[in-house]
């Protein structure tokens, strides 16, 4: 088992007596993209700062590439991070000048690499302009460029795409996806649920400093949805098949995970043989936004002061017993 790139164990952070993060544990492995989502004030930024070594835990531990980033700052040679939105730079230096400074602080980066990250973030034409005149989106892109400068093993980004236009947003997400594809571990906080669902490995949903759910999107991406006339019978039937790993009812549909993608074609025949009518068979695109809304609503007390029951959401998926 390889050492996790980021290992957070029972992390708690209090300011005074007020807990901001409570008993949080998760790991991010090389090649994974781990997203922290949650409403404003849920503790996402605090977690990012604790993991990056800018803030100190009240309890629990943070390890980056196997070491404590607070006591061994040298590990940050392998870290690329943006913890401000917009990313903070010296306004009187040019974009290139700021990246040179970052390169020096990181122990040395050659000019070719600086040009490469500027081009990658489509800032080549603005490289000689002072950052003070950059737009919000340009500063955000320069932030990602600075984070990518040293080809880091660990990327930590707080709201890397806030304030960006759709094209820049797509660019940032594709850069992060490529970084993970190259073996970097990526930890980010975001509100862009629709974008991250396409490439994140896991999503942690935070509410009031607690981890209320961790969603494995790799599993979710392998899911298929069958619209049938009798979903409960269809689920029972699918569950008995050795080539189906998991099946559950969601509304009028059955959602299932085949052991292999090529097994999907066998489902139509199986259901027809059992006398079930199949209206639709398609890949199930996970509705992270809907799921997130439901989980947060379930965590929050209703007007009567009690939390909603877990099946309060409209699209709740019945797990098999």
């Amino acid at each position, binding site marked *: 088992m390889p050492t996790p790139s980021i290992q957070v164990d029972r992390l708690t952070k209090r300011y005074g007596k007020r807990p901001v993060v409570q008993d949080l544990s998760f790991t991010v492995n090389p090649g994974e993209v781990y997203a922290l989502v949650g409403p404003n004030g849920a503790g996402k930024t605090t977690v990012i*700062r604790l993991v*990056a*070594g*800018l*803030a*100190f835990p009240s309890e629990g531990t943070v390890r980056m590439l196997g070491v404590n980033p607070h006591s061994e*700052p*040298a*590990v*940050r*040679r392998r*870290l690329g*991070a943006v*913890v*401000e939105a917009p*990313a*903070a*730079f*010296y*306004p*009187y230096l040019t974009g290139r000048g700021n990246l040179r*400074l*970052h390169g020096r*602080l*990181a*122990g040395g980066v050659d000019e070719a690499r600086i040009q490469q990250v500027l081009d990658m973030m489509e800032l080549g034409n603005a490289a000689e302009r002072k950052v003070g005149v950059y737009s919000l989106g340009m500063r955000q892109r320069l932030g990602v460029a*600075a984070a990518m400068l040293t080809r880091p093993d660990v990327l930590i980004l707080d709201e890397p795409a806030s304030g960006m236009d759709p094209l820049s947003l797509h660019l940032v997400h594709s850069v992060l996806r490529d970084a993970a594809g190259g073996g970097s571990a990526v930890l980010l906080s975001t509100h862009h649920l629709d974008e991250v669902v396409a490439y994140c490995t896991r999503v942690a949903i935070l509410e009031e400093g607690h981890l209320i759910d961790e969603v494995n999107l790799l599993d979710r991406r392998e899911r298929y949805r069958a619209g049938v006339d009798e979903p409960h019978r269809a689920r029972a039937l699918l569950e008995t098949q050795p080539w189906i790993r998991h099946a559950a009812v969601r509304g009028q549909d059955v959602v299932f995970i085949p052991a292999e993608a090529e097994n999907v074609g066998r489902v139509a025949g199986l259901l027809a043989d059992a006398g079930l009518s199949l209206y639709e068979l398609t890949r199930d695109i996970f509705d992270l936004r809907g799921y997130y809304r439901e989980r947060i609503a379930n965590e929050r007390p209703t007007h009567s002061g009690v939390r909603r029951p877990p099946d309060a959401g409209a699209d709740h998926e019945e797990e098999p017993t």
Partner: protein
Amino acid sequence: MELDKVARLASVRFSLLLLVLFPVLWAYAPGIYHVYDFYLVSAYQVPALSLLSSMQFMLPLLVAISAAELLGIEIANGTLQTVLLRPVSRSQWLLSKLLVVSVYPFAILLVFLVVSLLAGAPYGYGSFVGGTGLGQAGLLGQGTMGAGQAIAEVLRAYLVAGLSLVPVALLSLLLTVAFMSAAGGALATLSVLIFMQLLVVFPGLTPYLLTTQLNAYAKPVANMGWVVALIAVYAAAFAAAAVVLFERKDF
């Protein structure tokens, strides 16, 4: 890098403007005789007049503001976090700031001295009857004073003045770390200095106060060892406290 940042600070530019204007205005101010009870007779007396009028309030304030801004602007702009995300140790980074703010009082006093001497040009740079105001004989002196002796007295006094401002700069940096803001650091430093000045009601404490050392530039040379040791203790204590606090600070 840090020196470049100092040159860009608004407070440094404002300080330089004041330090250039101040000696020019004071050298020809009509009320000097009524306040100090003497007439300027030599260019070497203008630096004394500049120090006498500014060491109790203006210079400590300017030093405190610039020292606070040097760190405070990095906190306000978010560049402090950016730097700390790189493989730089916190104490190493803060020590570079501490070094710069320790040199800063000498730099501004050098400007102050040069402008003061230039402002006094019409009074002449030759021998004169009287004193520089920065030696034991004060401004009235003990007969004729040569240019060499006058320059030596002025340089020594400015050097001691610079030294006594170093703990003020370090205190300001310490309080900026504590309050995480330039305004908070500068104002807290000013408050501490005013509080210390009020402590003269405890005569036993007076010789040990930082504010007492701000007048050390006019003290006899024989007392200088004690003054330097005391200033060094203040400087070391403020610097060490700043590093310890900064090492455990959440950003």
